[in-house]
């Protein structure tokens, strides 16, 4: 079996036991990138030499008898929104083209400490704003199931890289669904950890009260191993939770739902949901019952207002965060001809350096925060946020986890929603509430829609620091469905 088809856990064991070298594993994935990334365009930057050097360093440490972590020597694709001191970091924006950060993000540092081999940086919607990667200033990535369709977003380069076997693992960030939605539409696993469970230090900020780094993998256990590798308290992030990482790896191995109470969110169905998505979801509900879970319907009435509340809160935070791109200290500077003032240079630079979606959100946020509108928009959205958290709390009195489809539809064609912002925003309908409440949530594959043969995701949501419940239920569903399918869903994807 080709090294690129193996799981991260298997690769880690093969490397630790010296059956294969980390260098061979890195080379196999670099070869795969060379073979298919011209079609998929998952990567913005690949550094083959540096990846091989990192891999050789792991091999040397293992040869000396050092005991490293379970992912030592395993390759990873890293979302280009985390700073990396040895590679460019663009956030998918022209305003940061060619920028070399002077420091590593905490997630980057922890990947290195765990011995993971960073192959390169992956494409994303500019500043992680979008659901398709079409907002990247460097062009879209393509869904390996159908190259004419989107791989989801904003972390679409990371989902495409893993689904195309260019890397067994990748990192993402999830502000409104930017890990779970790309995972769902490419048939892989993506997890949004509890807010504050993974550090935002060195993550280029979009909406600071929502942004959460998390893992992508082709199976639930691999995702848990990666989450464990980069999570935990960080003194450099004031919102980092000072508590042990939930037992995610143990939960992924447990893979059992007997006696668990599972709630189906009533509000996540109806108009706008593709029939094939609902069919696969309803079958998965029956499967969970057959595995011994007690499934009930629960109502979260304020979830109907999560999308409008999010599109006030996230743009408000973005308009403030992106003020740092001022053409003075780093990044692009346009129009500095000696006659123009700093303010003029700033406005020209931002107009030239930001794409349309970023401009829309900055202006929307500026509007929601401006005097006269603040109470009606931002203030009211913050109150709705409180009510959404209360809906979750009430639901978790009745059940251990909540489930829903991850997305209302399968992957849509590239171009279909590119200039229709409201249509694009609907892709995050089911994922946004967990961000507003800071909860944990995972997406695992649950089948292919009949209409188009494209992957459907099951979302499993759990309370704050209940990340292990997501993995436990996700692994149980994965095990039962893989038995039914005779292997992972992704093995049904057409060859590239």
């Amino acid at each position, binding site marked *: 079996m080709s090294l690129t088809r193996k799981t991260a856990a298997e690769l880690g064991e093969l490397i630790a036991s010296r059956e294969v070298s980390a260098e061979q594993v890195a080379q196999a994935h670099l070869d795969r990138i060379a073979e298919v990334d011209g079609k998929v365009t998952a990567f913005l930057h690949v550094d083959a030499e540096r990846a091989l050097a990192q891999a050789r360093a792991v091999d040397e440490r293992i040869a000396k008898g050092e005991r490293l972590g379970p992912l030592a020597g395993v390759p990873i694709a890293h979302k280009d929104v985390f700073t990396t001191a040895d590679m460019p970091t663009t956030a998918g924006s022209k305003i940061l083209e060619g920028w070399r950060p002077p420091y590593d993000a905490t997630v980057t540092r922890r990947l290195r400490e765990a011995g993971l081999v960073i192959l390169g940086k992956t494409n994303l919607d500019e500043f992680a704003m979008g659901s398709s990667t079409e907002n990247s200033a460097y062009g879209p990535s393509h869904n390996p199931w159908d190259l004419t369709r989107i791989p989801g977003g904003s972390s679409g380069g990371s989902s495409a890289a893993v689904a195309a076997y260019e890397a067994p693992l990748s990192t993402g960030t999830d502000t409104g669904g930017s890990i779970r939605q790309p995972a769902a539409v490419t048939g892989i696993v993506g997890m949004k950890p509890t807010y504050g469970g993974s550090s935002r230090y060195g993550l280029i900020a979009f909406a600071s009260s929502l942004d959460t780094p998390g893992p992508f993998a082709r199976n639930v256990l691999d995702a848990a191993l990666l989450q464990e590798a980069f999570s935990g308290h960080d003194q450099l992030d*004031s*919102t980092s939770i000072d508590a042990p990482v939930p037992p995610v790896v143990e939960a992924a191995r447990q893979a059992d739902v007997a006696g668990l109470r599972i709630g189906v969110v009533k509000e996540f169905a109806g108009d706008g949901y593709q029939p094939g998505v609902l069919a696969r979801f309803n079958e998965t509900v029956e499967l969970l019952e057959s595995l011994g879970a007690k499934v009930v319907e629960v109502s979260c009435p304020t979830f109907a207002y999560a999308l*409008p509340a999010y599109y006030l809160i996230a743009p408000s935070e973005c308009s403030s965060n992106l003020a740092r791109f001022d053409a003075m200290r780093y990044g692009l500077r346009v129009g500095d001809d000696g006659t123009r003032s700093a303010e*003029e240079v700033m406005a020209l630079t931002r*107009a030239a350096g930001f794409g349309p979606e970023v*401009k829309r959100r900055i*202006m929307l946020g500026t509007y929601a925060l401006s005097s006269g509108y603040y109470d009606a928009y931002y203030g009211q959205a913050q109150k709705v946020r409180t009510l959404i958290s209360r809906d979750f709390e009430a639901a978790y009195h009745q059940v251990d986890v909540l489930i829903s489809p991850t997305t209302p539809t399968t992957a849509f064609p590239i171009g279909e929603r590119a200039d229709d*912002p409201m249509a694009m925003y609907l892709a995050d309908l089911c994922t946004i509430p967990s961000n507003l409440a800071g909860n944990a949530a995972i997406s695992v594959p649950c089948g292919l829609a009949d209409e188009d043969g494209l992957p459907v995701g099951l979302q499993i949501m759990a309370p*704050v620091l209940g990340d292990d419940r997501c993995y436990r239920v996700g692994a149980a569903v994965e095990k039962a469905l893989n038995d039914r399918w005779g292997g992972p869903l992704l093995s049904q994807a057409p060859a590239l």
Partner: protein
Amino acid sequence: MSAITRDEVAHLARLSRLALDEEELDHFAAQLDQIVGAVARVAEVAAGDIPPSSHALPLTNVFRPDEIRPSLTPDQALSGAPAVEEDRFRVPRILGEEA
């Protein structure tokens, strides 16, 4: 009635330090009108006495010991600057001609 006018969008662009051209203003005015109209639905929620949440989780101030630690060198800090002069960021003029 539109939720947001073209003049308001031009004002927002100025506040946002975005030098947009006329065509962009027309395009964004139509789109922002649609988006503001959609997000205004939050007003339907009866939330008069509900406390607002700026964050999902309770925040507490975080302090660290006041100790000198290694930090970026001037060269590192200036490494991405568009223009540098004498170990400083060189910026366009920030005061008017009369100043």
